[in-house]
């Protein structure tokens, strides 16, 4: 099984290395990292920093997809958490105090966690299809964010809040530590508790899992909660980067990026087996791709074209029809030869 996992993550890593190599060749400055005041700068560092919001959202999306679901509302939830946090800070008399910022962040994240649980409730208890259930919040979420900010783009000045995205810690961008922390916490929770395997079990075969006594409803419910929580943190990072709550543009289209990262990492949209490591690699691929496209002089607004093409290619590559074509081209790997080898049964004497 370890072999299989290795095998699965090999492709995304290969793609990432190829992208990095391409960049390194076409612009040597890509790999260079400069140290200024004990802080690291360079394209690679930018990728680490800028990928943080997507990383958080994609981690949550991985869990949701593992249960055969999808969360389209992550972008809207980012807008909500940013709006909540910045409104609290801007209304506070001490916008620069650590306490205010902590309260603001906690409030923003708590609210999206509740919204995530709401999504989970609609999916697991009411039984609405995940796309539709989360579509409702995707639709209404930005409206809610706009209401919170009163229809304006709230801007603030608050040093501790700016630290979240723009600051440094022991030489590395602070945002990098946030995404690193999220990766570690989620990996630990998923692999050190039974949640990982139970989530996979529900995603692979809901009925068999039910018969084995797995609380599938609770699992499905909580992954949406986690997804909301992580989207909330991502929203904080985003708003800290621009020091403004932009309800219309915060996290716009991030749901597709996140889905793309998950799929690129090797987790199937059909649910079941998931790989967090793959998603992490997938996020870096997307961020590097964005960086490459910007470098090539393509306006950032056009990047969706490239992402759409990647989505199409990846989805087609996963489809059965294309696999059949491929296996026909390589006759050595026809499906008939890969069927299970019968095991010789021992007949007891």
């Amino acid at each position, binding site marked *: 099984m370890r072999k299989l996992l290795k095998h699965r993550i090999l492709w995304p890593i290969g793609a990432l290395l190829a992208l990095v190599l391409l960049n390194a060749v076409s612009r040597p400055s890509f790999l260079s990292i400069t140290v200024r005041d004990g802080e690291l700068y360079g394209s690679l560092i930018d990728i680490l920093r800028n990928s943080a919001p997507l990383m958080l959202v994609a981690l949550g999306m991985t869990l949701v997809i593992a249960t055969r679901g999808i969360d389209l509302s992550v972008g809207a939830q980012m807008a909500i958490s940013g709006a909540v946090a910045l409104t609290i800070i801007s209304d506070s008399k001490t916008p620069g105090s650590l306490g205010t910022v902590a309260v603001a962040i906690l409030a923003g994240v708590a609210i999206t966690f509740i919204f995530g649980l709401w999504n989970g409730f609609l999916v697991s208890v009411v039984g609405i299809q995940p796309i539709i259930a989360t579509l409702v919040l995707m639709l209404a979420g930005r409206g809610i964010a706009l209401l919170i900010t009163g229809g304006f783009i709230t801007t603030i000045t608050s040093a501790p809040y700016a630290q979240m995205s723009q600051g440094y810690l022991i030489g590395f961008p602070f945002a990098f530590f946030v995404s690193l922390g999220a990766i570690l916490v989620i990996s630990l929770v998923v692999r050190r508790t*039974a*949640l990982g395997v139970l989530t996979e*079990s529900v995603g692979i075969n809901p009925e068999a*899992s039910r018969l*084995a006594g797995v609380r599938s409803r609770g699992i499905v419910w909580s992954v949406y909660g986690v997804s909301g929580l992580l989207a909330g943190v991502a929203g904080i990072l985003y708003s800290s980067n621009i020091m403004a709550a932009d309800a219309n543009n915060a996290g716009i289209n991030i749901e597709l990026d996140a889905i793309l990262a998950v799929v690129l990492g090797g987790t199937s949209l059909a649910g079941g087996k998931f790989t967090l490591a793959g998603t992490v690699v997938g996020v870096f691929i997307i961020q590097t791709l964005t960086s490459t496209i910007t470098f090539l002089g393509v306006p950032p607004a056009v990047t969706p074209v490239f992402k759409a093409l990647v989505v199409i290619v990846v989805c087609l590559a996963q489809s059965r029809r294309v696999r059949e074509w491929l296996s026909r081209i390589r006759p050595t790997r026809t499906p008939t030869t890969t069927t299970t080898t019968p095991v010789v049964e021992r007949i007891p004497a």
Partner: protein
Amino acid sequence: MDVDPVVQVIGASVRFAGDIALDGVDFRMFAGEVHSLMGENGAGKSTLIKAMTGALRLDAGAVLLEGRDVDLSTPAAAQRAGISTVYQEIDLLPNLSVAENIMLGREPRRLGFIDWRRTREAAGQALSALGIDIDPASMLSSHRLATQQLIAIARAISTDVKVLVLDEPTSSLDQDEVDELFRVIRRLKSRGVAILFVSHFLEQVYEICDRITVLRNGVLVGEYVTTELLRLDLVQKMLGKATFDLEQMTTRAPSATPAAAREVKVSAQGISRRNDMLPTDLDIYEGELLGLAGLLGSGRTELARLLTGIDSLDGGRLMIDGVPRRFHEPRQALRHGIAYSSENRKSEGIIAQLSVRENITLALQAERGWFKPIPRNRQDELSASWIEALDIRPADPDRLAGLLSGGNQQKVLLARLLAVAPRLLVLDEPTRGIDVGAKVEIQRLVSELAIDGMTIVFISAELEEVLRISHRVIVLRDREIVAQFDPDEITIETLLTIVAKAEDGT
């Protein structure tokens, strides 16, 4: 008969992922006859039907219609050729009108647009040809299942149909509705249509069918004239004889103390579920190995699912150790030590993409909850010990469960349930579709568990097996319990008679 058969299947073979579903089966039907295809689960009935109706392609062999090799590559092609099917789960569209369901795809058109008036008229004619009086403009979903069935037949015969396949058409009909259906079948028969009637209700088969073809394990057993085939013989041909001498020598269930001397573990009082089970009483005693016998559709699986919380009760109640309990989820039954192993190993048992270790520890882990993971070394210990105890092969805990053979998958499933130390274990056809060696091992294991004091309900289509290892045997028929026996006081022939309801000896 001197007439040529209207449809003829020659040497049909089909394999699924290495398993043989049909092995060189010959089959024929004549115009104007009602023919029954009989066999238990996995006999190959549905595979043969699918091959005839264009839903599946044969790996070897041929289907000839009126002696000619016709295109049966898709259901549409088969319909054009004259073979129509009405499936068990009626394949109509509840969101459309009756007229549309009959005429869809061949509506009369004028200038390219559907002429609804003529469509309704044509549908009305098809219905009245069968003697059915309903409004063609009404919605399909507004009609009873039985009527929908007749509408499906109306659709099937509104083309020039030569062969009509009815797959389990009576499974959810009451007696009046069955009579109505039979009236329609006879009408079609008199028009020269060959009708393939597939049903597990022997009564109905004997009432309506002229000839019977029996399949077992993908192989043709024989073709018989209904009036010349005793019911008892039919059931015996369907179920097969104990062909494996080794079985009887290796495993012999320990004789039980009298049932009355033991405490009641589970008491079902009038439990019922619509379409599945008539109100039923059943006491299961502590430490007994209770065998459930019955044909497919007799209610054997339905009863098991009601006892274990898989399906919820419509009526009646369950007493566990003398305390009434309500189960809405299997989880709740598991908490009371009641475990169920499904007959559908692939869809309701194994988690195919998880490893053997993860599969074995799944139920135990689910019971412990999310935050009390079984430590990895404990998992390894557990899976290693179960792999050894049940002789799961290959003995690799990290192999994906989906890659194991059927028998080994069954053992993994058993290990999963045994790992939670259940006090009542309900095994639904644990020996179906696995090879003989694994079968013997599972039988022996079940006996050993019973010796160790576990209460077990054992369901099997193989009467010989049930009789041999059970302490007490209960027979189900038509969704209710019809008899119970001490296995030592009954012969397999008597049991056959009761299962087949053949007291009258037809």
